[in-house]
């Protein structure tokens, strides 16, 4: 096969892939168009989701998505950073390799299994231990008020934390390990304690990559569907308490898609998908730009984490 045909052929195949992505965006947008045209931009801030009266608004689900992701990130960032710092600077040798691999394997467990575990194992704990404890500490009103059902916003946030941590830890670990030894040695040589070296030199030096890790993890949390759908309770009202049932963009789509017969219903669900797609892509692009060269040199095995 002549060189030109070879190169051209390969290029075409690779480019076809880009065409596929464009097709994805275009088809979803096209399907969403009728709902968006009908409701206009008010769709984004509309709060009612009423198939009976054909009135749809996306706000509760946008908020639900942001809330679950927010809970997940608030917990996953410190825990993930601390874990990765400990993995790189706190333990060494074989135990470090074993625990690192264990964390990476966490990422391989399918989302639906996490969902099952969260629904049948974690939910009872949340209902009988965590929610009452939180309510008694905080007085049981506002963010911590309402009936303690187990399933709901809090549980969805917690399962997201568990699912996002492997990504957060794996990338942070690589970023932290990449801080040049000279800087670490230089800090120790000045009389710093180990924590001072980590907090004042290593973390600031790894700042950009760590921000990328956070953003990438956030992207994963935003797009997570199945586990969240299984435990979030599926209410179309905006949640006012962590204990309330709620819904996210993806859970709403998952739940209602097969029942959507009325035309605006389906188109509105497509609109939700479009919003989700746009948010996820923007976050992902930001993350890739921040993580930068770390993305290129990663071992094949850790690519799966992303």
């Amino acid at each position, binding site marked *: 096969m002549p060189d030109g045909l070879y190169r051209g052929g390969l290029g075409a195949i690779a480019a076809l892939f880009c065409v596929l992505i464009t097709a994805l965006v275009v088809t979803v947008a096209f399907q969403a168009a009728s709902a968006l045209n009908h409701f206009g931009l008010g769709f984004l801030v509309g709060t009612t989701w009423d198939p009976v009266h054909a009135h749809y608004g996306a706000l509760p689900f946008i908020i639900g998505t942001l809330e679950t992701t927010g809970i997940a990130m608030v917990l996953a960032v410190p825990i993930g950073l601390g874990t990765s710092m400990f993995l790189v600077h706190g333990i060494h040798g074989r135990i470090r390799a074993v625990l690192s691999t264990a964390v990476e394997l966490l990422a391989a467990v399918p989302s639906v299994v996490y969902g099952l575990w969260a629904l049948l194992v974690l939910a009872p704990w949340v209902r009988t231990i965590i929610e009452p404890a939180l309510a008694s500490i905080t007085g049981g009103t506002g963010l911590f008020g309402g009936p303690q059902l187990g399933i709901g916003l809090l549980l969805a946030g917690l399962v997201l934390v568990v699912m996002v941590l492997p990504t957060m830890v794996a990338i942070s670990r690589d970023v932290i390990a990449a801080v*040049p030894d000279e*800087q670490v*040695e230089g800090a120790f040589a*000045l*009389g710093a304690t180990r924590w001072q070296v980590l907090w004042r030199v290593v973390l*600031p030096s790894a*700042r950009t990559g760590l921000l990328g890790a956070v953003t990438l993890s956030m992207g994963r949390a935003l797009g997570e569907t199945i586990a969240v759908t299984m435990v979030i309770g599926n209410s179309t009202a905006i949640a006012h308490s962590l204990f309330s049932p709620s819904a996210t963009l993806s859970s709403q789509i998952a739940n209602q898609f097969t029942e959507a017969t009325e035309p605006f219903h389906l188109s509105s669900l497509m609109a939700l998908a479009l919003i989700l797609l746009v948010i996820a892509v923007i976050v992902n692009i930001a993350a890739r730009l921040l993580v930068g060269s770390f993305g290129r040199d990663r071992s094949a095995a850790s690519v799966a984490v992303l």
Partner: protein
Amino acid sequence: MTDPDSASVTALDALDVATEQALEPPPLHAPVMQVRDLAVSFANRTAVRNVTLDFPRGQITALIGPSGSGKTTVLRSLNRMHDLVRTAKVTGQVLLGETDVYGSGVKPALLRSRVGMVFQGPNPFPSMSIYDNVVAGLRFNGVRRKALLEEAAESALDAAALWDSVKDRLKAHAGTLSGGEQQRLCIARALAVEPEVLLMDEPTSSLDPISTKRIEELLGELRNRLSVIIVTHNMQQAVRIADYCAFLLMGEDRAGQLIEAAPTTTLFQRPTDQRTLDYVNGRFG
């Protein structure tokens, strides 16, 4: 000199006593640090052995020898940098004043505030400004008072021949400095903590000749405030700046040993050992 506060610092008394001894105006020939039968191995491979050496106070001592002779290994054992390497094992004594720095009760972090180090390649902290770099060591050691920080910073930058160039841009990023300036920044950073000993691991080997010359000049002035121990593979540099030299060489068992230590002129002109003579005459390098 009695310090009413020292009564409450019981675990650190030994080190306090040593500090006080260091602050008396010392007789110039007394050693600031001593090494007794030092041996360092990494995972069963001996890197240096049987090193016994005194480092004179207020002088510049050079550790010279071909590569692989263990000079850097000896240097790093003086401020316990080998503690950071899991496979490293250090035996023998390293004395700072009267105290064995490997003795129980000695805290490496405090030791390193008294024995500072400058590395081969400039390694300023990239996330910090020039000022923050210089005072980093002080902050690590718990100094917070601005007046003291600024006083120490100016004195250190002055001693590193950098004050005039950077005094108007202290908040600038450390990366805006040239290679030679960055190394002088690292020297200033080490000096700011006012250590008694400054260890330098081939500090000019990655620099151009002009930067090298400027650093060699400032080293001479440092004798007034501390003792310098410098590793160099460059014999001419040793001749230019060192008062005292220690020649190390890798032995048949691939472990470095101290061959000879003497004032510079003696070592280079009238060495006792044939191997020293061969080395200084350039027969191997």
